[in-house]
């Protein structure tokens, strides 16, 4: 062995450099800073190669498979917008009938999950199929050009909930999908954020081990739709969690069993003011001030309901996980 090429590498360094299995590879057509593309990579890394995926219509499907190319390295199929839950149920039934253990995943956006695909998702969970359903939540119909969904936050601007003289953006609240899903009393339902890869991977691995329907909702910023710089995706996602608007929780059989504590909750305005979709809330107008207060109240409500406030510094709270790097959690 040539001495010049050998060097000592620490275990930590080695762990950081080890190649990971990636179910989705580079070269796809996602926008710069796409939260969904990153989230999908993290999910497939944690899920491993023995999977098959039913993908709903949406950005993820479009940007990964422009015929004749595909960035998927696992068996993957897209059928329609509203049937990802049912396609996955069919795949899982086939695996059962064939005596195979390949895990079936279902990928959909918030439109395909909260709205048009909700019935198929509910049916799949009620029937107890062994499927991990992942919702990439970017809070609007981004694929068709930023229209409101039932996941769009209150007061956000979309092309179908524009602010104007009479309106301050979306008039309705964001649907609490994880509670609705958990009400099916499935073994595991969780929310996570692309800003916390350690949390995200852990939840995927947890769901992969469970026999039965599981659900993970991943907050995935859309720079184009939310109006922020593509380089700030993770910062924006992190602030959504830190202000309490996006609670990161775990529910088992309908009961709250885990949460990501917020070490220092920040005001919602920190999160809102970096995004064009909330820009209208910062004008000097009583309606704007009202809506800002409303959003702060929603965040406060989440923090109180889920007891999100941390109790001192912890490796596993928002600030602790911000320090986490590949290869393990470092001391915060």
């Amino acid at each position, binding site marked *: 062995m040539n001495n010049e090429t050998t060097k000592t590498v620490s275990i930590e360094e080695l762990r950081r450099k080890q190649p990971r299995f990636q179910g989705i590879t580079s070269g796809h057509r996602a926008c710069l800073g796409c939260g969904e593309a990153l989230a999908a990579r993290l999910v497939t890394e944690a899920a491993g190669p023995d999977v098959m995926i039913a993908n709903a219509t949406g950005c993820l499907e479009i940007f990964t498979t422009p015929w004749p190319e595909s960035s998927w390295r696992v068996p993957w199929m897209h059928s329609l917008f509203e049937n990802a839950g*049912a*396609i996955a149920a069919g*795949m899982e039934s086939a695996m059962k009938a064939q005596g195979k253990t390949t895990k079936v995943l279902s990928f959909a956006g918030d439109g395909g999950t909260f709205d048009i695909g909700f019935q198929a998702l509910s*049916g799949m969970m009620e029937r107890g199929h062994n499927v991990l359903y992942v919702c990439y939540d970017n809070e609007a119909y981004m694929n068709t050009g930023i229209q409101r969904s039932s996941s769009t936050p209150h007061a956000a601007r979309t092309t179908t909930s524009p602010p104007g003289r009479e309106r301050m953006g979306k008039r309705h609240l964001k649907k609490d999908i994880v509670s609705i899903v958990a009400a099916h009393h499935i073994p595991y339902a969780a929310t996570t954020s692309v800003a916390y890869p350690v949390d995200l991977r852990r939840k995927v691995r947890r769901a992969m081990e469970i026999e039965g329907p599981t659900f993970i909702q991943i907050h995935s910023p859309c720079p184009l739709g939310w109006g922020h710089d593509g380089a700030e995706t993770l910062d924006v996602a992190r602030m959504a969690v830190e202000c309490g608007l996006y609670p990161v929780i775990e529910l088992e059989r309908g009961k709250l069993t885990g949460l990501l504590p917020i070490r220092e909750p920040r005001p919602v305005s920190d999160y809102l003011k970096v995004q064009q979709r909330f820009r209208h809330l910062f004008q000097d107008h009583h309606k704007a001030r009202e809506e800002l207060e409303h959003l702060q109240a929603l965040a406060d409500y989440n923090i109180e309901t889920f007891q999100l406030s941390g109790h001192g510094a912890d490796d596993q709270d928002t600030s602790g996980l911000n320090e986490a790097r590949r290869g393990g959690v470092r001391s915060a």
Partner: protein
Amino acid sequence: MRQALEGSQALARAVALCRPQVVSAYPITPQTHIVENISKLVADGELKCEFVSVESEFSAASVALGAAMAGSRAYTASASQGILLMAEVLYNIAGSRVPMVLTCANRAVSAPLSIWNDQQDSMAVRDAGWIQLYCADNQEAIDTTIQAYRIAERCEVPVMVCVDGFTLTHTMESLELPEQAQVDGFLPPYKFSRTLDPARPLSSGALVSPDYFPEARHSHHRALEKAIEEIEAADNDWGEVSGRSYGGLLAVEGPEDAPIGVLTLGSVFGTLATAREDEDHNVRLIRLRSFRPFPFDRLREVCEGLEKLVVLERALSPGAGGIVGNEVRAALSEMDSPPAVYSYAVGLGGRDVPLSTLHQALERVQDRPAERFAVFDVELDKLPEEDR
């Protein structure tokens, strides 16, 4: 073995003989008895399969699609509103070129609401890219279901087996159920060329740009045209196995030199055939078994020498008239001397099609030039003056 069975019960047994691995369905009249009987076969351990009782027809078709893509032989059944709710998935299944079999227990489509038989449902999805086979009686429904799996899997095109609701599904008949060994010999285990498999990952359902889309559609069209051979072969080969075959693409009865023909689909044929024999009419009866692919060549062959052809169908396209009628007229227009085509809808929404229909039809066309379209059995006095 010969048994007295209700049509739906017989269909369930026929499906079970094909050893489907995943069956998914949502109940709708008059398909209900089919899936109830399959559920019972599963409950009794007579059929080993995953039976997925879904929350809608949309999911029924989607579960079947997911299962077929993942390498399992799949089955579903529906009717009427259910077929329309599935319509988007039906196009998707066919466009993805995934084999499976669906029984359509033909029923009218609302509004007005009707639970009774006509063929508006399957006709509404005639362009979805499925093979459509129409059955005249329950024995044919059994045998066609078995043939359908072989056709679907060889052509990689899904097959819809159309069976008239109530008239067939709810009628008790003396039927011959094939032996399992006969079906096993005819229908090899399901193996799909594009199965989802982690050892050989592939992506299905890509976004196709205008650079490739017309080619995909062309190859789908060609696949259905090429299916003609497989439909004929399946009927022939099953004839050798079971002793029963049905004419392949279409069935013909009656004298070859008859000046008038009557063409129909499905169970109306039996009524016409009985009337022809009883009343000794000089008429050639033609029944399209395969509506998709459309049997252009065979149809022209059997219409050779006819002066008049009456098309009786249980559906219509409002504002255009007969769906089958217009297609038949177009197909025959390429003949040197095509028969005059009389296009009628009959028996809509379960209106009885009595034995006298044949006689009435022959009377009606006797001294009349070709009729573009009419609802044959409409009773205009039931309508306000302005709607007649």
